[in-house]
């Protein structure tokens, strides 16, 4: 399996925090390469993960080439990546600070670092919601696109595995 990890990080040092841990986890499942969104993306990857920080860094919301998502295979957007996918589907982002470890409705814990989330009402209406945190949809799916508002590489790695092995 060929897995592409797209970094949305404004600074290379942030990739040590938001991209490299993902690379380490997913390389057990296939050939991984990472690319910054400002560089050419690989259309032939079986799976794509988009990740970055979404607390102060929002350049990707204006610069990410959304049309390139048309040609990718299965895509998981984590945090900043989830915001990009929301924009792709024209879901508005609302201000909501989620920083820390929170319990999901299935009893597991997830690590959030996000300050703008896709509008929950639109997500519930237009996506299949796979996980909630209280009444907020935090993991959702539409076709081949998956949005995760939390970082599964920190807590809840099973979600990454399920995404890679087509179990969700």
């Amino acid at each position, binding site marked *: 399996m060929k897995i592409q990890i797209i970094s949305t990080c404004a600074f290379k040092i942030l990739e040590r925090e938001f991209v490299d841990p993902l690379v380490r986890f997913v390389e057990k499942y296939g050939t991984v390469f990472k690319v910054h969104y400002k560089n050419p993306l690989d259309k032939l990857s079986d799976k794509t993960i988009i990740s970055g920080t979404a607390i102060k860094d929002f350049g990707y919301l204006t610069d990410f080439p959304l049309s390139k998502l048309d040609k990718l295979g299965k895509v998981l957007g984590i945090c900043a990546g989830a915001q990009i996918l929301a924009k792709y589907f024209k879901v508005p982002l609302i201000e909501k600070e989620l*920083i820390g470890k929170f319990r999901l409705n299935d009893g597991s814990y997830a690590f959030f670092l996000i300050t703008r989330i896709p509008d929950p009402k639109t997500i519930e209406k237009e996506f299949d919601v796979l996980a909630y945190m209280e009444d907020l949809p935090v993991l959702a799916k539409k076709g081949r696109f998956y949005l995760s508002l939390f970082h599964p590489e920190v807590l809840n790695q099973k979600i990454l595995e399920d995404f890679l092995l087509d179990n969700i």
Partner: protein
Amino acid sequence: MRVGVLYTGGKDSHLALAIARDYFEVSCLITLYSENEESYMFHTPGINIVEVHSKLMDIPLCIGKTKGEKEKELLDLERTIKKAIELYGIKGIVTGANRSIYQNTRIQRICKRLDIWSFNPLWLMPEEELVEELLNRSIKALIIAVGAWPLDDKVLGRELDKDMITLLKQWKEKYQISLIGEGGEFETMVIDSPLFKKKIELEYDKIYENYSGRIQIKSIKTVDK
């Protein structure tokens, strides 16, 4: 970008500093002196060494004080970071957080409130890679406190060099200890680094009982390398 490093003088914050210098201008070190030896947030053993490190690296030190009461110490940290923003014009904070969600999220929240960047270059870094990077960057650290079986008084004062790391790897396999002391198994103090103009020599006594102990520093000398 100008950044400040949350600095304790231990191996993790020093490594984070060394990495940060590859990307940014490190304008100050930020240290909180905690009166609480059991602080959730702040490393306490040998903390005064930061004053020596600051001089050896020509990086100013911004000090705050805290009683170390849970959560209240975060306000003290926030005040100290604010002071660093005013004095040194920093736009971001670098930390050596590796696994602690508690530390990471609390600092992220402070940075969000103060509208500055947060950088955690050691975040989720595997222990083996972290110690490898310390060796590759020629950062020399001593074990200055121990807090778990089988780390005994013979370990106190030992350098975290290849031999010690090999021993820790054996203990990790046998007793599931953390190779980097993440579970409080040990604390370190950097005594030499390529960032230092001189190296540090310590004279100390050992205080040790029941797999818990620390070195008590009697004198600190800086000597030519």
